[in-house]
């Protein structure tokens, strides 16, 4: 029987690594993958809490999170494809029109 705290620790490590990857990487696609890692870390934490509290609602919420993440991935990738079509690059250090 593994304590839920261990799962929570793994979730915290994953979330922190996702944030780290988001700030270190400079291409939109990999940054988007980092966001997915963070979403998954949240899912793991939700399931660990659901196990700890004995409530099945956590599992239902995880299903919703996965669905919303799928929708988010579709729209995000479409936007990245649009950016690539207009600028021929997805490097964030070359996309700096909004910088003053």
């Amino acid at each position, binding site marked *: *029987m*593994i304590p839920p705290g261990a*799962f*929570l620790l*793994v*979730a*915290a*490590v*994953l979330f*922190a*690594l996702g*944030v*780290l*990857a988001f*700030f*270190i*990487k*400079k*291409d939109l*696609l*990999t940054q*988007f*993958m980092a966001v*997915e*890692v963070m979403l*998954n870390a949240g899912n*793991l*934490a939700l*399931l*660990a*809490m*659901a*196990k*700890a*509290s*004995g409530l*099945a*609602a956590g*599992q*239902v919420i995880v*299903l*919703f999170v*996965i*669905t*919303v*993440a*799928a*929708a*988010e*991935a*579709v*729209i995000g*990738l*479409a*936007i990245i*494809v*649009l950016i690539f*079509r207009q600028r021929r690059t*997805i*490097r964030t250090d070359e996309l700096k029109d909004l910088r003053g």
Partner: protein
Amino acid sequence: MAWAVFVILSVLCIGSVLAMIVSRNQAHNALFLVLAFSCLGGLFGLLDAPFAAAAQVLVYAGAIMVLFLFAIMMFNLREPAPREKRRLRTLLAAVLGLVLFAELAVAGLRALAPGSAPPAGPEGLAGLGRLLFTEYLYAFEITSLLILAALVGALALAGKKEGA
């Protein structure tokens, strides 16, 4: 036994996310992420959530990462990304990540500490389905609308002809 599985899966998962940070090839990044999400599916299974585990492997490791690979194929970037030069940025990101990790760990372990209610009997898939179609019926239906909106939105965004 369970501990061994847990340790192997978490080390694989965290290791492949680390490899994603180090690697500069986008296709490799996507494949590392497939490994990470599959391991995460195993962890979900360890948490008595078989349906979430199946959905994780099917939707994340399957559908979403294939979508990423298709996008990478469309971009057709020949040379790998140049080496990141800014040491300061990496350092700041590392500090931010460490602080965030400490905060999350403290918050999570604190939330678990008091009482720790005795877990209720396992409800299984039947309980999950009942909950999904009674208490969370509205959310479920709204989710289907959301997916439809995402489908139409993606078509409207990316389906245009070049230069239109």
